[in-house]
């Protein structure tokens, strides 16, 4: 059993400052405001505690960008004496910490790990993952667009390297992994001033309080039902795609905000996020094997609901609801799963 530490909420600025002394710390902070909706994103700790938002359940952008940036240079190519000299970019070894990652996003990082650190390892991704310390924060309530419960994720037990939860004016802190233990030790003297709770019973006090949203409208969980579909081909040729794709505008917002979407394109030494919804994604010299929006739309949902479960055993969705909250036309994965 790992120790649980607790610290009063008014000492949180000290805690953040102390972590930031060890390594860059990113936590949910409010950005500027447009139309009355403040964008909260994981932003580097600047000492401005007033901008820190520990109530927000989903940051606009998921944490995936910390491991798999929207655009990164993979190597440099310099022309020298008629030959190219190729130098790979050095791998990150600078540790950093993310605070306030929610259960859904922590689960999503595990899904990404399965893709990038699997049969073939993506060195750039792995280096950043190794350098990161994920400090999660348990959810006290759920937002209207949350549906993590459909994937068996418990928002009250967020996992990560360190789990934290807010309760009765305290932040509770429990290391979950060796990495989490190391960070806790590094905080050293500071953590010693913090009260240590001898049992972790209080962690579980939370889990009973949250009623998980169920957008299935009384139907059986569509994601579980889909898993039972005997063959992928029957989903692929389903006539439902003909209608479903029509109201999608194929912008790709869902793919960029999705914590598990991980498709990219490499152009001129750089790797950039790409999206299966874009016509350029599968463009080849001979043409495009996914010629219309229908095929591209189908690819996105088939990947999440069928191909990924087939290869990795899990649906590539964690129910964070970012696609629900941000889709320009309110298309979403629950709708697609229900129709199929």
């Amino acid at each position, binding site marked *: 059993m790992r120790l649980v530490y607790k610290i009063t909420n008014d000492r949180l600025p000290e805690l953040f400052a102390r972590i930031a002394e060890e390594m860059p710390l990113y936590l949910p902070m409010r*950005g*500027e*405001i*447009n*139309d*009355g*909706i*403040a*964008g909260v994103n994981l932003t580097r700790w600047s000492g401005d505690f007033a901008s820190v938002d520990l109530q927000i*359940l989903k940051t*606009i*952008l998921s944490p995936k960008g910390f491991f798999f940036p*929207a*655009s990164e240079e993979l190597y440099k190519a310099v022309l020298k004496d008629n030959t190219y000299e190729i130098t790979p970019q050095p791998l990150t070894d600078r540790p950093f910490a993310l605070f306030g990652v929610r259960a859904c996003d922590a689960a999503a990082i595990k899904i990404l790990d399965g893709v990038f650190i699997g049969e073939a390892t993506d060195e750039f991704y792995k280096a950043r993952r190794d350098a990161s310390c994920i400090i999660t924060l348990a959810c006290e309530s759920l*937002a*209207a*667009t949350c549906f993590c419960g459909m994937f068996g994720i418990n928002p009250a037990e967020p996992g990560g390297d360190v789990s934290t939860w807010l309760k009765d004016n305290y932040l509770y802190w429990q290391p979950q992994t060796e990495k989490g233990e190391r960070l806790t030790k590094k905080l050293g003297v500071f953590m010693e001033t913090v009260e240590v709770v001898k049992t972790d019973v209080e962690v579980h006090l939370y889990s009973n309080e949250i009623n998980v949203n169920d*957008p299935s*409208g009384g139907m059986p969980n569509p994601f579980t039902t889909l898993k039972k579909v005997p063959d992928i081909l029957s989903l692929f040729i389903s006539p439902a795609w003909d*209608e479903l794709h*029509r*109201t999608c*505008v*194929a*912008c*790709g*917002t869902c*793919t*960029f*905000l999705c914590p598990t979407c991980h498709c990219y*394109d490499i*152009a*001129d030494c*750089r790797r*950039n*996020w790409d999206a299966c919804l*874009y*016509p*350029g994604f599968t463009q080849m010299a001979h043409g495009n094997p996914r010629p219309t929006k229908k095929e591209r739309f189908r690819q996105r949902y088939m990947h999440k609901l069928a191909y990924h479960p087939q290869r990795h055993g899990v649906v590539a969705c964690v129910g964070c*609801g970012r696609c*629900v*909250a*941000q889709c*320009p*036309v*309110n*298309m*979403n994965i*629950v*709708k697609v799963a*229900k129709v199929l």
Partner: protein
Amino acid sequence: MPQEINKKMRSRAREMLASGEVTQVLAWEAGEFPNYPAPAFFKDETACGRILYDRFCTANLSKFMIEATRQTGRTLVFLRPCDTYALAQLIKENQINREKAYIIGIGCEGNVAVNEGEERGLLESCRVCVKTDYPVCDELIGTENNSRTVVTGSERFEGVTRVEETDTSARYDFWQVLLSRCIRCNACRNICPTCHCKVCILEGENPLEKQFFHIIRAYHQNGRCTDCGQCARVCPQGIPLQLLNRKLIKEYKPVEVQP
């Protein structure tokens, strides 16, 4: 009010599908999550009971009409004033076959922004809305209260004026900070009714060139943008994109070309 309009929309959709005047209806239906209604096509009169119209129906349906009017048969679409401006522009640009569209203008009291299912006041575009009429439509439903959110011209350009009043370097910083937040998700481009190029000139461009993207896009909309505000509404990062378009609307003066 929207409930009354909604009722009439359902019955008109049923009638027109039953009589065969139209083969499909483009409207909104309830989504999987409360207050997230989604655009939908209805082909069957029995499904018309699902047609929904409330202040959360924020998506402009005009752009879907490009695809809809390329199919066989006629499409009934429900449009608010700003949506009809967009549709009129698309007709002007030969993107929509007018014969294949039956347009019912519906009353609008302004749409609301939504955050996690909760109402967060009028959308910025609705707060400064100047449109109450329907430049292209075949029929009207419940348009008596349309004038309620309409403001005067100067109020509409307030945001633009505020930026104009700052000096060049402050203005540069303003846009630099805002546009650096762009993730090139293309929501603004793809929801924009007048962004209908088959292949965008900026498709697959270096995603780091965000300023470039937005400036090119704004210029391409010059004289065509109907100020429906969809770009700003859909931006996940909350970039006030309407300012760019509105600045061009403010400066734009059509030139008479002599043949």
